């Protein structure tokens, strides 16, 4: 299983990590994914009603923790992290709107198509981001 994220997600994580209330965010997210198979990650709420490309909203660290939105491409065994927000603290917020859910969905599709992604390593109880090299366009 390979985990990717869109650039917006990386920026968001780095911003939250810089706030003392969320300094464990990389560990919390890493702990959720590390060592799990895709089938074990298919839980939470699924907004897009798709068995092959489930869009998942997951509660991380219980009620007062985070809400994580990610996409799974089952046939490729890939996960794409799209958005995260804390429920409490200075950056805490309520549920996101359907419009916002659609917007992240649109961004992830375009990022997959353009390969503007970061590969996310969940080892060592943290998240490490590595930019995915752009592929040369296929010759006709």
């Amino acid at each position, binding site marked *: 299983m390979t985990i990717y994220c869109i650039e917006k997600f990386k920026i968001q994580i780095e911003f939250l990590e810089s706030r003392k209330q969320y300094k464990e965010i990389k560990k919390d997210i890493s702990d959720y994914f590390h060592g799990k198979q895709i089938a074990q990650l*298919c*839980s*939470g*709420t*699924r*907004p*897009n*009603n*798709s*068995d*092959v*490309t*489930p*869009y998942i*909203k997951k*509660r991380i660290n*219980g*009620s*007062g923790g985070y809400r994580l939105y990610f*996409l799974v*491409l089952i046939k*490729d065994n890939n996960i794409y992290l799209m958005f995260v927000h804390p*429920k409490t603290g200075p950056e805490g917020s*309520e*549920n996101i709107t*359907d419009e916002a*859910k*659609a917007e992240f*969905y*649109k961004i992830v*599709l375009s990022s*997959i*198509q353009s390969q503007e992604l970061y590969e996310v390593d969940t080892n060592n109880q943290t998240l490490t981001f590595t930019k995915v090299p752009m592929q040369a366009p296929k010759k006709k």
Partner: protein
Amino acid sequence: MSDVIFAEKISSVMQRVKTASFDEKKSQPTEEQVNRFLDAISSLRNFLNDKTTKLEKFTEGLEELSWMTGLNEEHLKSLSDLIGASRDLRRSLIKTYVRFNVKVKSRGIMVSEINGFKRSIDDFTETINDLESVYFYLPNNPEFIEITDRLSKL
């Protein structure tokens, strides 16, 4: 002030202290009374924790319902009824929370349990709204549907 007045004043305060000391010894709560009070708090705590646990299970149940595909009109009608019933339950839970908040938490008792109960109500509410969105709003968003279709063809 004369020595006699000083002596009377001291004696008067002394008498009040002695009386208070005697009353205090007499009015100590018995072990049984203390235990009764602690049992009542413990029972209230269990009552609320049971509610919180039950509510967390409801929330997980609602989340699981978002993973169903190929639902027909009858299923959607049942889901709509379920969402309505869940909102009724939420209203009752909020009333319970307010009662606990005013009568118990405001006195510094069971603060973390009451906060936990409130968070479980918030999660339940969030999941009801999400479930409604999954089956009744997002399927009517053409752009959202189109992205799902394009992703499945990647």
